[in-house]
């Protein structure tokens, strides 16, 4: 005996557009065009059905025709804005050229932009992306807007938005402004957040003239909860790295801190390592994080040989993800970054970048292939090229997950 207890067709990571128009040809055209642009499209040929869909499917954006029999667009938008479940969804008007009056009236009623018929399909996509670009950062506070219920107001949302902006700024300031400079090394970083605040982080902690602590991690989830936890972990790692000599002990203590102070579902993965600047020795511990990749130029006893004679070593030694099990234990390993070697630390937002085809994730193998051809470049160029490659893979600058990358290159002697 089996019973289906949950079904959801739509893939939530794809943005959904609801098109409400009484003209079946326009519906078919937009559906075809927007689907090929990677959107999930729902259509409704009349206002009441559109309202129903908007409530049930919570689209990311609504394309709304002004002139419709039964219930016209102005009535539809009025009802959308009256309902706490749908009021935050951006609306893009579809209007005939002759209806300039309606346009203005429409915007007054809360539409975000308008497109005049006949329209250029590329323009539709561009307008949609422009509106989504503005509303994307707000989207994940929608549950909060709903929770605000009747006390929801434009001012309330504006205030929330400004708090969020302030949080994002504080968070960015917590990250090192620029990578450190040390003779013999070339550092570069790349950081992008899919929402205004992020769960990814990295840090450089000067421990002495000769030692640099390097941290990179990823707090589960996005948005404010992840960002708060990230700040806690970053602060803890700054303090503990000065108290403890062993990266394994630092992770163990952060694990204990998180285990006792957060919910079981809140956890992080992170790598902490100490770089001895004179010798290039890097002693690290990896708490359940995707392993940093060490490209070794001079071949010796390592894991895997690449076409261009370098080898890679994956920095896997450590322990479980951080903050879930108080029994977690951590170990450490020391490797040597020799002249010409490159070490890259990254978060899974890089390898989980999805390609144009669903489920075609960038993956560790492609990352290694892509980087192994760039080892001669400066750390900055390696970062930039990686960014470009990821963009080519996904075909979009829109991120589904945060990304943080630290590249450490030891210059040739």
């Amino acid at each position: 005996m089996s019973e289906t207890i949950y079904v959801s067709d739509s893939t939530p990571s794809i943005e959904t557009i609801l098109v409400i128009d009484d003209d079946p040809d326009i519906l078919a055209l937009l559906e075809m065009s927007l689907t090929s642009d990677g959107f999930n499209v729902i259509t409704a040929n009349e206002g009441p059905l559109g309202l129903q869909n908007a409530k049930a499917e919570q689209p990311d954006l609504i394309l709304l025709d002004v002139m419709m029999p039964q219930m016209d667009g102005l009535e539809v938008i009025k009802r959308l804005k009256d309902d706490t479940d749908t009021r935050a969804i951006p609306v893009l008007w579809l209007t005939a050229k002759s209806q300039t009056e309606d346009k203005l009236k429409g915007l007054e009623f809360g539409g975000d932009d308008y497109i005049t018929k006949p329209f250029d399909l590329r323009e539709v996509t561009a307008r949609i992306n422009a509106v989504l670009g503005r509303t994307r950062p707000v989207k994940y506070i929608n549950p909060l807007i709903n929770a605000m219920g009747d006390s929801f107001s434009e001012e309330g949302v504006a205030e929330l938005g400004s708090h969020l902006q302030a949080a994002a700024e504080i968070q960015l300031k917590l990250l090192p402004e620029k990578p450190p400079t040390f003779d013999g090394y070339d550092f570069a970083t790349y950081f992008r957040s899919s929402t205004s605040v992020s769960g990814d982080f990295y840090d450089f902690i000067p421990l002495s003239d000769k030692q640099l602590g390097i941290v990179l991690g990823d707090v589960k989830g996005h948005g404010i909860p992840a960002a708060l936890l990230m700040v806690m972990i970053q602060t803890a790692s700054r303090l503990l790295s000065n108290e403890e000599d062993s990266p394994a002990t630092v992770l163990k203590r952060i694990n204990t801190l998180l285990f006792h102070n957060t919910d079981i579902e809140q956890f992080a993965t992170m790598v902490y390592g100490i770089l001895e600047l004179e010798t290039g020795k890097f002693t690290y511990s990896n708490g359940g994080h995707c392993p940093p990749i060490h490209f070794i130029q001079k071949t010796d006893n390592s894991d895997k040989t690449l076409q261009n004679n370098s080898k890679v070593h994956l920095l896997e030694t450590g322990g479980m993800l951080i903050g879930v099990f108080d029994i977690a234990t951590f170990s450490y390993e020391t490797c040597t970054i020799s002249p010409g070697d490159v070490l890259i630390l990254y978060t899974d937002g890089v390898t989980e970048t999805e390609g144009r085809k669903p489920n075609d994730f960038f993956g560790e193998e492609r990352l290694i292939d892509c980087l192994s051809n760039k080892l001669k470049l400066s750390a900055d160029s390696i970062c930039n090229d990686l960014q470009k490659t990821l963009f080519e893979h996904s075909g979009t600058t829109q991120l589904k997950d945060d990304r943080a990358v630290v590249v450490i290159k030891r210059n040739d002697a």
Partner: protein
Amino acid sequence: MQVNLRHNDNVIILDIEGNLVGPNTIALKNIIDNLIRKADGAPVFLILNLERVQMMDSSGLGVIVAAYASIRRDMGRIVLLNIGGNIRSLIIMAKLVTIFDRYDTEAEALASFQNT
């Protein structure tokens, strides 16, 4: 994502189809939370059949880890069935192989509950 629920004696089997990523995972969390709530303190014996899950991310891992913790608290047990490429490597990467019992066939997974 689709979730089917089956019973085999006192063992509950959840067959999951689709990707366990991002906001998608909340549904699974609610389902498991409900099962635990319904059990009302009695141990829950759960098999998560992940044969038809191609992709899991850290949110998915979070749900499974939380389920593990809540189920263990009530002296129940959760095992994973048929974990594929990405999920296997995620669990290995997170060093959770020592925490989760994993089986390749349903018969083995069910048999494992006979001994507890």
